[in-house]
C-alpha cells in the first residue's frame, strides 16, 4: 500500500519539503512505496523577498516568478487546486474542485496573507509592497512623489520582520538620489522600541538620528482617513501623511479558519517537533505555525529542512530524526548599497553584524540563489 504524503501550499516551505523529500526517499518513490502530492493555489512560484526592490525599480517582475511545475521535482504530483477543508480526524483534504485527498502524512504550508481590509481606511489610503499589485502601485506612487510627509507604518502580526526598517532606509536613499530633499519620514511601530529584536532596535536608533528619520513607538493602527490623509493609533496619536507606506497586519489562510485548525489561521504547533498539537501525522511549516518566532522565509526554510529529515527517517526507519532549534536568519538592507544580517535560535540571542557592502552584495546574490534553495539544493 503506497504511503501518501500530502503537502498543502506551494510557497517556499512546501516546495522545500517536497524537493527535499525527493532527494532523501528516492528509492521509495521509485518503488511506489511512497507518493508525494502537492496542492497549491497558483501555478507560479514567487520569490517574495524580491518585492522589496520592485517599488524602486531594482528588480524586474519577471525575475520574481518561475513556473512551480519547473521548480518542483518531477516525482511530485502537482495540482493547482487549493484546499478548502482539512479534516485531521478523517485524514482527508477537500479541494476547490471538490476532490478529496487522503493522506498518511500531511504537511500544511498554506502561509499567511496581508489583511489591510481589517483596518478601516487602510486599503484606500495606504500603499504596501507585500504583494505584487501593492508593490506595483507603490512604484507608481513613488514615481509621482514630489516631497512631503511619508509615514512608514508597521502592524502586527507581519512576516519578514526586518522589511519595515529596510524600506525606511531604502526610501531615504532613493529619494535623496532623486534630489527630493523636502521629505520627512516617520516610522511607527507597535511596541515601545524601533524593532522587536532589541539589538536591531538599538542599532536602528542612532541610524534614524543620523538621517533625521522620526519615529512614533507604541503605535497600533486604529484607522486611516484617506480623505484627510491621516493615520490614527489605538494609543490616540494621529499623524498626517502625503504618502503612507504600511506593513499591513497578516492572518493565516481561510482554509485553516474554516477547518477550525487555529485562531487567526495560525495552527497550534509544537515548537520543536513541528507537529500539529494533538497530531502525530500532521506537520506545520512556515508562516502557518503559531510558534512565537519570526515569520520569515528563512524560518520556513530551516523548519522545512527539519521536517524533511523527520519524514524521511519515519518512512525509512520508523525513527524520529531531530527537533527544530528555532533558527532564523535575516538579511537586512541598510540602504541601497550596504546591508547586514542577524541570526538567532531558541537559545542564542541575535547580534547584528556591522553593515557592509559585501553583505549587501551577498543578499543580491541570494536573490538569484533562492531558486536553488527552493529546489532543495542549498
Amino acid at each position, binding site marked *: 500500500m503506497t504511503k501518501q504524503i500530502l503537502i498543502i501550499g506551494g510557497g517556499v516551505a512546501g516546495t522545500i519539503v517536497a524537493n527535499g523529500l525527493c532527494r532523501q526517499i528516492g528509492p521509495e518513490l521509485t518503488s511506489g512505496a511512497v507518493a508525494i502530492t502537492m496542492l497549491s493555489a497558483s501555478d507560479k512560484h514567487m520569490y517574495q523577498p524580491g518585492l522589496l526592490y520592485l517599488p524602486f525599480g531594482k528588480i524586474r517582475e519577471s525575475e520574481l516568478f518561475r513556473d512551480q511545475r519547473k521548480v518542483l521535482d518531477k516525482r511530485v504530483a502537482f495540482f493547482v487546486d487549493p484546499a478548502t477543508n482539512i479534516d485531521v480526524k478523517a485524514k482527508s483534504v477537500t479541494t476547490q474542485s471538490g476532490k478529496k485527498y487522503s493522506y498518511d502524512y500531511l504537511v500544511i504550508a498554506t502561509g499567511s496573507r496581508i489583511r489591510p481590509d481589517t483596518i478601516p481606511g487602510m486599503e484606500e489610503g495606504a500603499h504596501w509592497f507585500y504583494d505584487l499589485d501593492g508593490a506595483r502601485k507603490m512604484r507608481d506612487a513613488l514615481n509621482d512623489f514630489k516631497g512631503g510627509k511619508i509615514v512608514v507604518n508597521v502592524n502586527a*502580526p507581519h512576516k519578514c520582520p526586518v522589511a519595515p526598517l529596510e524600506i525606511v532606509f531604502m526610501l531615504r536613499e532613493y529619494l535623496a538620489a532623486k534630489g527630493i530633499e523636502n521629505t520627512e519620514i516617520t516610522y511607527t511601530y507597535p*511596541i515601545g522600541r524601533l524593532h*522587536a529584536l532589541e539589538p536591531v532596535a538599538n542599532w536602528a536608533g542612532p541610524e534614524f538620528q543620523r538621517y533625521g528619520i522620526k519615529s512614533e513607538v507604541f503605535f497600533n493602527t486604529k484607522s486611516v482617513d484617506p480623505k484627510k490623509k491621516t493615520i490614527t493609533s489605538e494609543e490616540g496619536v494621529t499623524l498626517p501623511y502625503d504618502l503612507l507606506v504600511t506593513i499591513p497586519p497578516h492572518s493565516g489562510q481561510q482554509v485553516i479558519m474554516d477547518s477550525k485548525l487555529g*485562531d487567526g489561521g495560525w495552527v497550534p504547533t509544537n515548537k520543536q517537533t513541528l507537529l500539529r498539537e494533538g497530531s502525530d501525522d500532521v506537520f506545520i511549516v512556515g508562516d502557518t505555525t503559531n510558534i512565537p518566532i*519570526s515569520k520569515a522565509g528563512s524560518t520556513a526554510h530551516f523548519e522545512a529542512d527539519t521536517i524533511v529529515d523527520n519524514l524521511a527517517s519515519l518512512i525509512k526507519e520508523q525513527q524520529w530524526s531531530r527537533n527544530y532549534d528555532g533558527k532564523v536568519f535575516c538579511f537586512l538592507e541598510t540602504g541601497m548599497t550596504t546591508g547586514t544580517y542577524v541570526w*538567532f535560535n531558541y537559545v542564542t540571542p541575535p547580534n547584528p553584524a556591522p553593515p557592509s557592502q559585501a553583505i549587501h552584495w551577498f543578499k543580491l546574490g541570494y536573490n538569484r540563489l533562492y531558486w536553488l534553495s527552493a529546489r532543495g539544493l542549498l
Partner: protein
Amino acid sequence: MSERITIDARGAFCPGPLMELIAALKTRQIGDEIEILSSDKGSVTDIPEWCKKVKHDCLSVDEKEGYWSVLVRKAK
C-alpha cells in the same frame, strides 16, 4: 463565554512577547484572557505599560521560576 489561552513566548527573541500579545488580541473576543509566559524581564513593564495606553486590562504579573506570567484581559 469568555475563554483563556496561554502563549508560551519564553525564549522568543522576535517578534517577542508583547508583539505576540498584540497579534493574539486581534483573534480574541472582548472578555477573553491571555496569559503570556515570558523569559524577558522587560515584559514585566512593557506589557502593563502598553495595556494602560490602549486600555486593555493587565490583571496580574507573577514571577515564576526563571520566567514571568502576565495575564491580560481584552477590554475593547
